[in-house]
């Protein structure tokens, strides 16, 4: 081994770069997506849970129109799969501490907000990939059995309107809560919250279910894609307006949570 080394002058254009928020965001997004999408657990857990759900709830009602079938199937999946999203997204921030990468990151002149948003969206998008694969496999199977291929193009808007806001919402909470408590505790609390907020009937227990804060995509399904209400929410009249409000609330809460995470991170940095 050559024990003496010299460092050549840097390539033109690389000397003392000034990072921009845009560059930081794109780098953080790109590499977080890459790391998360490479995790076998991401694919194994979401695909496994999705295929299990498909096996339990395989055959839709034969008389329903394609749009209703797509919307209902997507929302049924969205009642259960978010538990896997929460598990997979909860370790992304504690992981930085576990790997000791924060000290290095803190020595860069980067925009910590841009880094946080890039990391968040990259991680969420990586979890969305296997969820989309589950959706397309499911719709492909139903299309094949019904001989109705019009389901396939409907799957994408259904996924975007029902699963998208849920992923953003769950991802944001997983960021903040996993920073404030141990991951196993967060996972247990999340499972409790999720089923309380989506499956409990308001007639039995005060719950977020059947309100504008229902996170399962019920409002988007009924108000924008078609289909009936579950018995627990039978008194509701959901149209496009409340559906958009529900989506906006989910995304708005996600943004607020991320801003809170940014504030907590800045406060901690200021105390060092």
């Amino acid at each position, binding site marked *: *081994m*050559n*024990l*003496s*080394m*010299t*460092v*050549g*002058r*840097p*390539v*033109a*254009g*690389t*000397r*003392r*770069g*000034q*990072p*921009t928020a845009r*560059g*930081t965001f*794109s*780098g*953080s997004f*790109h*590499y977080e997506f*890459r*790391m998360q999408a*490479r*995790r076998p657990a991401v694919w194994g857990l979401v695909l496994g849970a999705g295929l299990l759900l498909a096996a339990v709830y395989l055959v839709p009602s034969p008389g329903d129109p394609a749009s209703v079938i797509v919307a209902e199937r997507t929302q049924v999946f969205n009642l259960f799969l978010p538990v896997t999203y929460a598990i997979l997204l909860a370790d992304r921030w504690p992981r*930085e501490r576990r*790997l*000791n*990468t*924060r*000290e*290095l*990151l*803190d*020595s*860069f*002149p*980067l925009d910590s907000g841009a*880094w946080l948003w890039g990391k968040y969206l990259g991680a969420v998008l990586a979890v969305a990939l296997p969820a989309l694969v589950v959706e397309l496999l499911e719709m492909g199977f139903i299309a094949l059995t019904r001989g109705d291929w019009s389901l396939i193009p409907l799957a994408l808007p259904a996924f975007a309107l029902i699963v998208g806001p849920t992923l953003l919402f769950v991802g944001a909470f997983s960021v903040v809560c996993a920073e404030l408590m141990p991951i196993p505790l967060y996972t247990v609390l999340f499972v409790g919250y999720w089923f309380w907020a989506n499956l409990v009937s308001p007639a039995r227990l005060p719950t977020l279910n059947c309100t504008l804060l229902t996170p399962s995509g019920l409002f988007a399904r009924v108000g924008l894609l078609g289909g009936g209400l579950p018995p627990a929410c039978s008194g509701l009249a959901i149209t496009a307006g409340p559906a958009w409000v529900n989506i906006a609330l989910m995304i708005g809460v996600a943004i607020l949570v991320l801003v809170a995470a940014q504030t907590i991170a800045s406060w901690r940095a*200021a*105390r*060092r």
Partner: protein
Amino acid sequence: MEIEIRGLTKTYPKGVQALKAVDLSIPRGMFGLLGPNGAGKTTLMRILAGIVRPSAGQARVGPHDLATGEGRLAVKRMLGYLPQELGVYPDLSAEEFVDYVAILKGLSNAAARRARVAELLETVGLAEVAGRKLKAFSGGMKRRVGIAQALLNDPQLLIVDEPTAGLDPEERIRFRNLLVGLAGDRTVLLSTHIVEDVAQTSTRLAVLSAGRVIYQGETAGLLEAARGQVWTLDTAGPAPLGDLTVVSALNAGAGTRYRVIAPAPPTPAAVPSEPSLEDGYVALMRRRTAPLAPGAPIAAGRGV
């Protein structure tokens, strides 16, 4: 890029005082920071890297004041930092990791960035394993990745905290040579508890103990702290006792040869010896632990 530190104090929220009114001048070139574990070296490094804020006093890197947000940001822009515990993403390859850091450091031109990443991985001898995941790297290879990322932005200030810890002798030599090569037109601050690393790289150094600078000056001047106090003693009996520190013990057939630091010969048979840098460091530490009158000079060079 010269560094001026005056009265620098750092007290952590739980009341631990890591630095106590530190005064230090660090000129351009290679500078060693020596001290035992817990002396405050890492805290000083972290303050100079803009990661931790000083509690009191002043630290300036060139014209930039590290007490202000603007100052810390300006220093970070010209900084290369290799922390003591380098965290890497095990599921990225070396090339991907360094590329990610390059993006975060603002190397936005993709072609120029790729060329710079390849050049630095070649420099640290990792070009052939650039595509291998970091989880398969040894500790020494990860340190080399750490140096590569620290050099990405051609830093004017390079801070390396315990860079040779855990490396085999060949890798230590390689690292030391690399650091010396880098010091030509920039300031390289090497923090370590290994005396040999400073002896082989730095003509100037400071010694920290319990949050205070107890020596700063020429590296060679540290020898003077031990002059007249280094003794060699051959004995077949028990180890020497008393007001002394055994620097080394060497089995010499029938007996043992001891090298000790003591203010007076530990036995009549003890022979005075020429001090080494390590002897000077040990003598300095001995004096530090002994009771001193306030303000008393404690070392040759510039004792503080």
